[in-house]
């Protein structure tokens, strides 16, 4: 890779940045910032839907058979469709578009100091296909038979045969929507990798690239390398559903386990695909608000590469008791526990970065620290599930459910809020309200723990997943109080999101004006005006003179040192 390639690449159609009308500016734009906002608002809308689903099925769990306000009676069919689509939406239509596509699109060109993505039209097409996939998914709730309810993992034969799932159209639409979404992100991924590698500002060496950009690049590589088998699998499943093929049909020499391999070969790297951008955001936020250089930039980078490679070798830990050759569990136990090493190291480096710092407890910082606290619990509880002997008991219990919510919630929700509150001044040129921000943080963080810590307990007590009513299980029915408690905590958490929505939209128009660099941070996006105009850097593209984390340098009066400032 060349050390630096001039950042302007005027051979595409946004080389001239003139004023545009509303439609071409906001709906058909090829500007990376507008596309980022499209992804973010679509992701937020989907998060509202996914959260509403969680509300509906948690209400059913707490008060079986009740008429849930806003939904009505949750039938077994509804319940399965709700949990299935809640999972799929939160991962594929919230975490992916917001963490990778929205932040990737917004931050990469600004942080590497160029005027737009390398392939702006591809970028626009990527969003349009993504939007289509979201609409297709939602359509499945309105077709005959209702939405698919065979879990987001879509295991055949349940997903493959209408006589089993009872949702002929719903299953097909679900698989189709997921496949479309993958196509959208393949296009996005190409763009992120190419732009970050080829459009870096003059002087920006690979080790000067901010961590969040690296993380999104590695995440995109992981995604693109792992999704191929699953897209192929999805097409095979569509054929099984509609064209009478028998790839996964055991009655006609197909193999349902094959699907599980294709799914989890993608599914496990996918965890890191969404995890890495979130940890990147956290790296930016904790360095800025502790006024500290990242403790070990290269160590983190290498742990990320190590994690990325290892993440392709752990998938069958989801299938220990699924009927694979039991000897395979030995291999996958070793690889799964091995992956705890780089991730633990990353946590140590992040926490160690605070040492000697001058920590400002702003709202974004609270979210970043909250990420570390919750993700730590998610990480350590994963050990129980990666160890084959212990997983026999925990597999498909609420312990698993609580574990992955302790990883995905910090990633998709806490990490996102850290990023949104941190870059909001850049995105909209105004500050968010700090008091409301802190109320929202505590109103989310405390109820989150109140929802999911008790669910670990239920899992240990043997409560299995995806059951709409536990009253037929006397050993489990006795824990009804805990279910009511978790649901109440969820209601509190959802209520506090109104504070965020108010703060977000109010501050967008009425917030205090933010300057170009309100947090006194170093990376290049803060050199652009807030909000950056079309073309990003009206005073000419920046040059880069140093790494992004030169805080509190002893030779300087100021405690920050922007990357673009000449020495």
């Amino acid at each position: 890779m060349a050390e630096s390639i001039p950042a302007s690449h005027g051979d595409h159609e946004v080389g001239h940045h003139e004023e545009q009308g509303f439609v071409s500016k906001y709906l058909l734009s090829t500007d990376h910032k507008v596309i980022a906002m499209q992804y973010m608002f679509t992701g937020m809308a989907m998060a509202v839907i996914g959260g509403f689903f969680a509300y509906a099925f948690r209400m059913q769990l707490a008060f079986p058979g009740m008429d849930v306000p806003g939904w009505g009676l949750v039938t077994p069919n509804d319940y399965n469709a709700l949990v299935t689509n809640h999972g799929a939406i939160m991962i594929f239509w919230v975490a992916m578009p917001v963490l990778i596509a929205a932040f990737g699109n917004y931050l990469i060109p600004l942080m590497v100091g160029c005027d737009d993505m390398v392939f702006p039209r591809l970028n626009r097409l990527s969003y349009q296909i993504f939007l289509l996939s979201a609409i297709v998914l939602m359509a499945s709730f309105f077709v005959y038979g209702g939405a698919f309810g065979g879990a987001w993992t879509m295991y055949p034969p349940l997903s493959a045969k209408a006589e089993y799932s009872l949702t002929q159209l719903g299953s097909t639409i679900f698989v189709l929507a997921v496949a479309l979404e993958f196509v959208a992100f393949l296009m996005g991924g190409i763009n992120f990798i190419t732009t970050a590698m080829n459009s870096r500002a003059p002087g920006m060496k690979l080790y000067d690239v901010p961590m969040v950009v690296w993380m999104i690049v590695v995440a995109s590589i992981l995604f693109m390398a792992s999704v191929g088998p699953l897209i192929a699998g999805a097409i095979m499943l569509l054929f099984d559903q509609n064209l009478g093929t028998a790839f996964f049909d055991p009655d006609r020499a197909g193999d349902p386990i094959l699907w599980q391999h294709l799914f989890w070969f993608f599914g496990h790297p996918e965890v890191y695909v969404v995890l890495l951008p979130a940890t990147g955001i956290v790296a930016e936020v904790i360095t800025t608000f502790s006024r500290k250089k990242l403790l070990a930039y290269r160590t983190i980078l290498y742990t990320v590469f190590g994690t990325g490679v290892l993440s392709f070798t752990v998938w069958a830990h989801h299938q220990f008791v699924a009927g694979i050759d039991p000897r395979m569990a030995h291999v996958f136990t070793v690889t799964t526990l091995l992956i705890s090493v780089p991730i633990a190291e990353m946590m140590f480096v992040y926490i160690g970065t605070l040492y000697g710092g001058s920590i400002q407890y702003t709202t974004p910082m609270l979210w970043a620290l909250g990420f570390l606290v919750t993700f730590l619990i998610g990480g350590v509880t994963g050990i129980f599930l990666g160890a084959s002997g212990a997983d026999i008991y925990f597999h498909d219990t609420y312990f698993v459910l609580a574990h992955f919510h302790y990883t995905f919630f910090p990633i998709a929700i806490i990490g996102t809020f850290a990023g949104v509150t941190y870059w909001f001044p850049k995105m909209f040129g105004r500050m968010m309200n700090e008091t409301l921000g802190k109320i929202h943080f505590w109103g989310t963080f405390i109820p989150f723990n109140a929802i999911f810590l008790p669910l670990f307990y239920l899992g240990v007590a043997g409560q299995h997943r995806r059951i709409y009513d536990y009253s037929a299980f006397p050993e489990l029915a006795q824990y009804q109080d805990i279910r009511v408690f978790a649901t109440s905590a969820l209601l509190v958490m959802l209520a506090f999101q109104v504070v965020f929505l108010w703060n977000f939209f109010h501050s967008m128009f009425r917030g205090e004006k933010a300057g170009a660099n309100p947090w006194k941070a170093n990376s290049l996006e803060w050199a652009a005006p807030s909000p950056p105009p079309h073309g990003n850097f009206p005073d000419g593209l920046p040059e880069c003179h140093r790494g992004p984390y030169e805080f509190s340098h002893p030779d300087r009066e100021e405690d920050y040192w922007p990357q673009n400032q000449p020495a």
Partner: protein
Amino acid sequence: MLELLIPQASTFAGDIDFVIELIFWIVLFWWALTQGAFCWLMFRFRRKDGVKAEYIDGSETYPKKVITWAHMAVLVFDVVIVVYAVQVWHNVKITLPPAEQTVRVIGQQWAWTFVHPGPDGELDTADDIAMNDELHLQVNTLYHYKLESKDVLHSLSIPAFRLKQDAIPGRVITGWFETTKTGDYLFQCTEICGIGHALMPARVLIETPEQHAAWMAANSPVSVAAQAPQAPVAVALGAPVQE
């Protein structure tokens, strides 16, 4: 610890609980250490007026040492966990000790069928006892199970045994367990299998040899047929019957 919540009713339940508790203490140690250091740092290095943060540029050896030490320690604990987990897994899922009795477990949308061998102790004979949603076992007996599915994936789960195994249509999966305690235990389906997934609770009834013999005598199709004059004579005499 775990047996306070869920009884242990198989020989390997205690082994699995041991692995779980071992991991629990290791993980608790790491969590407390990390979270403790984290809290201390957050408090100690909060912003104070006029105090500038330190500039640690990565060339110092001290932080590297700390991280290397932690890295090695994580690795050592990982090895310990792997050794115990793999051992237990091997015992439960790979070895197959000789059976004293064999039962067939069949999942379908949405019920379990348990086929017991009957008084002759053999499966697939006329005296087999098939029951829905009730698995009758004798205490202190080593069983093989033959797990099948008629339609989609299901999963056999008996929390008191700490046992779980998915059922796959088109395959017969053989495994084992040895009962240790009489009682009435929960049997769940833990793999989503359609809209009736929640409607598949079953019971595992572990009986003393006397209770078990009595149950068998009362339910064996042969003895039932012998008492019932309207049953075909051929069946009562134990001649082969068509399924």
